[in-house]
């Protein structure tokens, strides 16, 4: 079963400050944790895809009626809605396993090496209907 595991820029429930306040050591520990978790998923054959996205400053929002020129608005989203920061697409045996992976990611070390406690969304990717 495939699940999207998604992180946005909000939903941080620990008291940690934004990343531009962290020390180099705290940043390195955080990046290393992410790399190690991804490597572990790859080892287990659960990793399908995973990407960090460019910063919200680079986002473009596009609305079109298919006729006229599309309306393109530069990011970040004007109403302050939280944008996607990154995702993992995993192929696992159960929802429980997807939740377990999300929990690991949610506890990534942040300031002071403490868990970031970020809210992470887990949603199943719809699959093709079973053959008749």
């Amino acid at each position: 079963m495939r699940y999207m595991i998604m992180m946005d820029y909000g939903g941080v429930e620990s008291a940690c400050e934004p990343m531009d306040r962290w020390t180099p050591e705290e940043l390195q520990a955080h990046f290393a944790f992410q790399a190690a978790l991804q490597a572990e998923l790859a080892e287990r054959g659960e990793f399908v895809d995973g990407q960090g996205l460019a910063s919200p400053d680079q986002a473009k929002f596009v609305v079109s009626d298919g006729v006229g020129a599309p309306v393109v608005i530069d990011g970040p989203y004007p109403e302050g809605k939280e944008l996607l920061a990154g995702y993992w697409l995993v192929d696992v045996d159960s929802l429980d396993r997807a939740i377990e992976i999300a929990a690991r990611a949610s506890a990534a070390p942040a300031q002071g090496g403490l868990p970031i406690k970020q809210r992470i969304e887990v949603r199943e990717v719809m699959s093709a209907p079973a053959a008749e």
Partner: protein
Amino acid sequence: MTTDVEGLLRRCAPQALGAVARRHADFAAAEDAVQEALLAGAQQWPRDGVPDNPVGWLVRVAVRRLADEHREVTARRRREARVLHAAVPDDAEVTGLLALLLLTEARRPARSGPHGELVPLAEQDRSLWDRRLVVEGVHLATDALRAGRPGEHTLQACIAALHDQAPSSEATDWPQVLALYDRLHALTGSPVVALHRAVALAMVHGPARGLAALDGVAERLGGGHRLHAVRAHLLELDGRPRDAVEAYRHAAAAATNLREREYLTLKAARLT
């Protein structure tokens, strides 16, 4: 009781193939890699015991095989460049291209840290560089230059040769590097070359001269994080940490490569 290894492999094969094929664009290559992994399993599992996660084991072995193949492709490109060079040994640009490939490949082992983090040239552990490739690359770059009227590849190769021969960033023959960038920029007019030239200029004549050389490059580059990253680096060398931090943050926000973004974020943090 002996495990029916063959039966187990047959049952695991489809799941392993699915996992590998989903991650690899070339389905035929994925099939081959999984086939090799199954063969390895057939040999090793009766001897070493069945792994706790048989599908995971197969996927791991298959993925490693695909990574080896990628290295083989890179090696094949070098071999092809060698063959081309052997066919037209007097073609200076072909020689220069081969030299450039070798000299760039020589540095590969030092390019990433233990967690995959980016390590720029100035910070690389040069003892990890491949000496044999450096020697050969320098030899070919010299040949190409000696032929006269060096083209783009030959000039790039000569710059790489100067870097690869230097025991450290500080000990690099920067005046020669700058002279080569002057020629390369005159030849190509490339804004990316102008960017690299600004760094060399800073190393020879000081960061202020390098920063001045960045004026006018911004429009030619049309955005992107590289200009901010170079400016940040020169501001740091110029003893202006607050301005450098702001520039590193701009560069990080504009980065499109995760490792580069992490590196630039770290640089900003180190100066804060």
